[in-house]
């Protein structure tokens, strides 16, 4: 569970947030990247459609859910960025019978 902090200035990776390319540091979490965006909202709630950003950053609060590489309702604070990763904000209730 404990990681050595990555060396800043190391090579960067590119992830795509709703299709937009975004530079990220190797070793950081997707939620960490979301926090740095002007719009850090990662999802809206299923019943009232309220905006949510990452919060606890340790896998407890489930506020940081997002769609990662096609998989919805993923805790983005628990996922480390990978080159070419596709992240989408998750809006309202998931649809599994689309």
């Amino acid at each position: 569970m404990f990681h050595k902090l990555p060396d800043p200035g190391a090579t960067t990776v590119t992830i795509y947030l709703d299709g937009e390319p975004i530079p990220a540091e190797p070793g950081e979490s997707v939620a960490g990247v979301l926090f740095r965006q002007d719009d850090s909202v990662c999802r809206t709630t299923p019943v009232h459609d309220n905006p949510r950003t990452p919060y606890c950053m340790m896998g407890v609060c489930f506020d940081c859910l997002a769609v990662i590489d096609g998989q919805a309702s993923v805790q983005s604070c628990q996922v480390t960025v990978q080159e070419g990763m596709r992240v989408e904000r998750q809006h309202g209730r998931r649809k599994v019978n689309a």
Partner: protein
Amino acid sequence: MSQDYDVIVAGAGMVGAAIGYGLAGLQQRVLMLDGADADFRAAKANFGLVWAHGKGFGHPDYQRLSIQAVQDWPAFARTLEQESGIDFAYEHDGGLQFCLSEDEFHKRAARIDAWHAQTPELAPCTTMLDRAELQRRFPTLRLGEAVAGASFGTLDGHVNPLRLLAAMHRAYLNRGGQLRSNHPVTAISNLPGGGFEVRSGDTVARAARVVIAAGLGSSKLGPMVGLDVPLRPQRGQLLVTERLAPLLPVPASGLRQTAEGTVMIGVTQEEVGFDLATTTAGAAQMVRRALRVLPDLAQARLVRQWACLRVMTPDGNPVYAQSQSHPGASIALCHSGVTLASFHAGALAHALAKNQFSSSLDIFHHERFHVPQAA
């Protein structure tokens, strides 16, 4: 005779709260004594079905009671929502029990025919829908291949059971009832000159009448007033998914989508005593069946698995009885506290207020369990 209350209700769960709410609306001074949060509470894992179809097979009076209760539900819900200001998401567009093979479908059809035949005076309230008919009626339903059809109870529906309980408590208090939480009843005794003294630890209250509606806790309380009802816990495990866009338009037996979008999957029926554990085997069994009905659920995330202990009598039917040895003491026990809430708050509360049960309730007396075996 001056008592603190007309009636003390031991237990403020789904059954006690409905009775208390009903009594408080009949000019009765009522005190409800509720147990602790960590007590065995069947309502913690209630599935929320308001359901008649198929109930009381082999027991026409329980069938009649269930059908009447479900028919009374819309008016009961309207009044309760109005008085409490709490919306408990009651819908009654019918309920399905899926059949996962042709064989299951035919057996279910025969069983429903026999069930209807038990009460020839009532109009049939259940129809069999084959797969094509199911898909015609519910075009958005994406059924698994195994689904051959379903029985469809036209009167059935569902509700948010936690909000229902909160609504009954709120409306009960609005009607002037008294409620003490964290006050499990520890002793009930007769008062000289009539009435009862009810103790909860250091708290003592007196009333002309007592109603025991303490679920599994009733095993301890009943014998104090000559109401010794055999009971056993039956474990029910439940699963719930994340909130999803609508995929199941009406509730089904063991599968329902709540107003908020979660899908509840249940429920096991296990004879394991007072054990609230959840098991992988239980989860696997429930999920396997749910996926055969709605394969799309495979993409959903499960967010919680939990268990409760349901209140079971030896024959699974409710018990309503007045004490012979302790006049003024009564007991009410069942495992369908949501469906029967309209009855508990209505006809049963009236009977308790008058301290007079109609003969139609005789069949629900627990003496049915004490018949000596014929040689």
